[in-house]
């Protein structure tokens, strides 16, 4: 019987578009799914495509008129081999934290920790900040200012009781709940084996509560990645849930790539050991 990794990797490989990967099977290649698949499948062709997709400012993402989405830059840095392209991607992240807004009683936040955004010139959010944090921690650990800033952002945007949603703790005095997928994203960025960090521990508690209620493929896959990176013992339950997911219609390529990444050897490329 095939393992979860073998099944997801095979399905992912069938979904490729030439050397690279789009967000859905056979779609025009894009940096985010290609970076994830390159890591998950250890795929040199995908890495070459990715290197060719780097923009002049070192970023990776999608351009739509005046909108420069650069949120794939952290993932691309993690996927690229050591070299100039990877360093330029990290330089871009260093140079482009999100825009800050003044603190506001309606949407309270710390303006001193901007995080990273989905698009250049916009506000910071949890998932792109967690990606940037992971890239810095693995590939440029001496970027302590950026690492501290990203951790500070995640601490500031933590939901009441732990975990994260897209990045708003409260609006108009209403505490917003955490989501499974973004809580997993935050934990992937912050993970360290045997962590005693309260932020991480609260996030783990939140994720344990959330993923059984939010059984979408991306949530389950990123939760498995978080569990394995944190070396939590209950990962087998998530493997079972994901196997059942693969029995249904094929998930989109980003979710598939996360399943293959979380269940296979590629996850070591995201692990922070120190």
């Amino acid at each position, binding site marked *: 019987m095939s393992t979860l990794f073998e099944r997801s990797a095979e399905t992912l490989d069938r979904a490729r578009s030439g050397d690279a990967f789009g*967000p*859905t099977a056979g*779609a*025009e290649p*894009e940096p*985010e799914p290609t970076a994830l698949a390159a890591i998950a499948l250890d795929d040199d062709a995908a890495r070459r495509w990715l290197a060719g997709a780097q923009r002049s400012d070192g970023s990776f993402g*999608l351009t*739509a*008129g*005046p*909108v420069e*989405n650069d*949120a794939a830059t952290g993932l691309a840095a993690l996927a690229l081999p050591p070299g100039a392209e990877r360093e330029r991607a990290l330089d871009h992240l260093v140079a482009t934290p999100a*825009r800050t807004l003044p603190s*506001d009683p*309606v949407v309270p936040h710390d303006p001193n920790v901007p995080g990273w*955004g*989905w*698009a250049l*010139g*916009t*506000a910071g*959010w949890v*998932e792109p900040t967690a990606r940037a944090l992971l890239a810095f921690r693995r590939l440029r650990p001496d970027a302590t200012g950026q690492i501290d800033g990203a951790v500070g952002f995640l601490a500031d945007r933590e939901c009441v009781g732990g975990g994260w*949603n*897209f990045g708003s703790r409260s*609006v*108009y005095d*209403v505490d*917003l*709940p955490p*989501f*499974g*997928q*973004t809580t997993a994203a935050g934990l992937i960025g912050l993970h360290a084996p045997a962590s005693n960090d309260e932020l991480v521990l609260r996030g783990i508690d939140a994720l344990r509560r959330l993923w059984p209620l*939010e*059984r*979408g*493929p*991306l*949530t389950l896959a990123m939760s498995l990645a978080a569990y394995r990176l944190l070396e939590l013992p209950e990962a087998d339950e998530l493997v079972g849930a994901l196997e059942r997911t693969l029995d249904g219609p094929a*998930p*989109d390529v*980003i*979710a598939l790539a996360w399943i293959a990444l979380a269940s296979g050897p590629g996850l070591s490329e995201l692990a922070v050991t120190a």
Partner: protein
Amino acid sequence: MKPMDRRTFLRRTGIVVAGSAAVGLGAGAAIPNLLHRFHRPWDDDAFAPPGRPKVLVARVDSYDGDLETTVEDGLREVGASLAGRSVLLKPNLVEYDPGTVINTDPRLVAATVLAVRRLGASSVLVAEGPGHRRDTPFVVSASGLGERLGEVGARFVDLNLAPVTRVPLHSRFTDLGELWLPAPVVEADVVISMPKMKTHHWAGATLSMKNCFGCVPGRIYGWPKNVLHWAGLQEAIVDVASAVRPELQIVDGIVGMEGNGPIDGTPVHAGVLVFGTDPVATDSTAALVMGLDPAGIWHVSEAGRFLGQSDLEQIVQVGEDPERSMTSFDVLPVFQDLKTGSGDAHAGLGDANA
């Protein structure tokens, strides 16, 4: 009813800046009003004059009756022409919370699939790009929409992941200049915007125009679609709606949301569906049903200058009188001046999905 002035708009959207006291010294309101009249950030030849669109307010007490026939009749009454045309239904699925009524009810969406088929559509699909969550299959499943669409054999497309097409903007309320919209939206013969009738803590109300935000793909514009907020939320609503141009609208006001909408408000039974062929006229009418002054909702008022009909005297009501169908929705204090009257008393619903 008077249009909201720019200062009120800025105060509500939180972008009043230091130095505003220097604006308009000694000039009174005449110069800003004159400037506003001559500021026409749209291509005239891209938008037909709105005429006298029909809007239908239908009393519908619950989601359990023959919604398919209600929707079919409603679409016929407003003059929908669907025979032989491909149709995309765009419900509101911005995120999912089992404790309230964020989403267009799945029973209404499924009934609309069937009604649209009865009216001869060549194809129908249901599509949305959730704005807060990336895991769309979870939202579709948890909300119950997946099961309902399975029952009627309808396909769902995740607009956050669909291929995109560049669409030049013919209005310029933002500096975006163009939007990259999902091909299924661009290629559909008819887009039906199916919003939930809700208050909105930044925009006053979220109806068929604001619902078009879900057509903007998150993988470019983010989760949430923060690029649009930076561009100016109300301005972006106008530009996105003018790009998507939903030909038909069905507003789910059987149970709506009041207070701190669009996510954290309170369910309110308004007992109506609002049908229309002009998003500005439909949203103006739905606002009246909510007990809100449409002229005070900035994006409705501005869209009424070019995109559709906001002059209430020119909107042909072919169903219930919207003001007599009013359920006064509670709003946040910052939007209190939108309220038109007390309306019918109502009781909040304890179980959001009841």
